[in-house]
């Protein structure tokens, strides 16, 4: 294995593109190191992106925030303005692992690793986050929900790096939230994860909503029917019942030691209701 730590993204792309063997980007390494140590993958080259200064910051942009690909989840939690604008995204990123893992892990790594249960991804999907990708053929922006194509498989092509994730500006009276169900209180993989972002008008009617759903399908899902259950309502009990039904209906889970198909399907609906209530509360503040 070779290790490179270039200080520009162009250099990183060139090194990745020139590699004929297996190449991997190294951000926090909290997925990659475990995969390498367990012989799940044997890269010929790892390219560390943490020395690329332009990828290390959280920058305000058009009323939203651009989060560099090498920013750790702990740094996100320490950014007061980001926490105020996108509390749901930050709380999801801060659920990843322990304090030790938080200090290294990046939200971009969570996205690129394409685990179906990745915690920050449903929250990013709800937030309408955009991933900015740079590669040998230039730059492109994609909605985060287009990143995972299968468990562990992303839509990135050879030599491409996610430079940053953009969280857009949001209207007044907007709120977002993320909850996951795990058997413990910390350090476990989501059995179900739900992220919801919504916006209210001056009368308390929901005008815009997005629902992201994790751990119940091969990839994180954007659930339009669940959002439709909220839009046009005051997010009252009737709307929440429809939300739960639409969320459960979108589930295509597997049975495993952490949850059965029936359990995951039911819990997805229950969690969606709880998350919507938190998002509603935040939107009203």
């Amino acid at each position, binding site marked *: *294995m*070779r*290790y490179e*730590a270039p200080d520009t993204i162009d250099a990183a792309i060139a090194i990745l593109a020139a590699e004929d063997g297996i190449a991997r980007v*190294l951000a*926090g*390494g*909290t997925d990659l*190191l*475990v995969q*390498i*140590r*367990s012989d799940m993958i044997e890269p010929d080259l*790892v390219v*560390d992106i*943490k020395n690329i200064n332009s990828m290390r910051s959280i920058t305000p942009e058009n009323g939203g925030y651009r989060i560099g690909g090498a920013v*750790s989840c*702990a740094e996100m939690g320490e950014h007061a303005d980001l926490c105020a604008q996108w509390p749901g995204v930050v709380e999801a990123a801060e659920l990843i*692992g*322990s*304090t*030790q*893992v938080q*200090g*290294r892990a990046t939200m971009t790594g969570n996205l690129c690793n394409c685990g179906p249960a990745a915690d920050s991804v449903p929250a990013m999907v709800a937030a309408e986050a955009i991933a900015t990708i740079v590669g040998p053929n230039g730059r492109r922006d994609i909605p985060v929900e287009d990143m995972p194509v299968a468990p562990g498989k992303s839509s990135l092509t050879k030599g491409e790096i996610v430079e940053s994730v953009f969280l857009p500006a949001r209207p007044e009276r907007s709120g977002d939230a993320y909850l996951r169900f795990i058997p413990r*209180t*910390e*350090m476990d993989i989501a059995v179900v994860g739900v992220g919801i972002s919504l916006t209210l008008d001056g009368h308390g009617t929901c005008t815009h909503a997005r629902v992201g759903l994790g751990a119940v399908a091969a990839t994180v899902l954007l659930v339009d029917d669940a959002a439709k259950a909220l839009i046009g309502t005051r997010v009252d009990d009737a709307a929440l019942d429809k939300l739960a039904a639409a969320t459960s209906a979108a589930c295509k889970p597997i049975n495993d030691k952490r949850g059965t198909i029936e359990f995951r399907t039911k819990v997805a609906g229950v969690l969606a209701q709880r998350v919507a209530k938190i998002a509603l509360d935040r939107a009203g503040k």
Partner: protein
Amino acid sequence: MSGTHVSTTINGDAVEYVCDVEETLLDVLRNRLGLTGAKEGCSTGDCGACSVTVDGRLTCSCLMLAVEAEGHEIGTIEGVANGSELHPIQQKILDHAALQCGVCTPGVVVAVKALLEKNPDPTETEVRYWLAGNLCRCTGYDKIIRAVMDAASEMRGS
């Protein structure tokens, strides 16, 4: 295999080593530098026995390549005591008998030190969440938490 040369700082001292790219920081600390305080409990980031700080931030040294330490400041358990004088966190762990086998203890001490530098007056809940990545199979955690609360209080001078 030809090694990679790394220049770093460990517990305030400039340190240079040559390592293989595959080696983790934990491997190098233990096997090349003789700093065996950090323990290998799992090597997958779950147990926290290998905890160190990197530029002041708590990190699992098993989840970091040794080459990634280039230019950074590493803090290990060996740098916590002042010569033979124990750090208050270490002393309180002894006073409260908050260890049995001791395998988790270096990681716990490094983690608690990082917590108290950031937050000198944590609640018990904050301590428990902060230490969620430090597994202990002996003590049942309660004594560790008591020791931490006591150490925090002493370090605040109250």
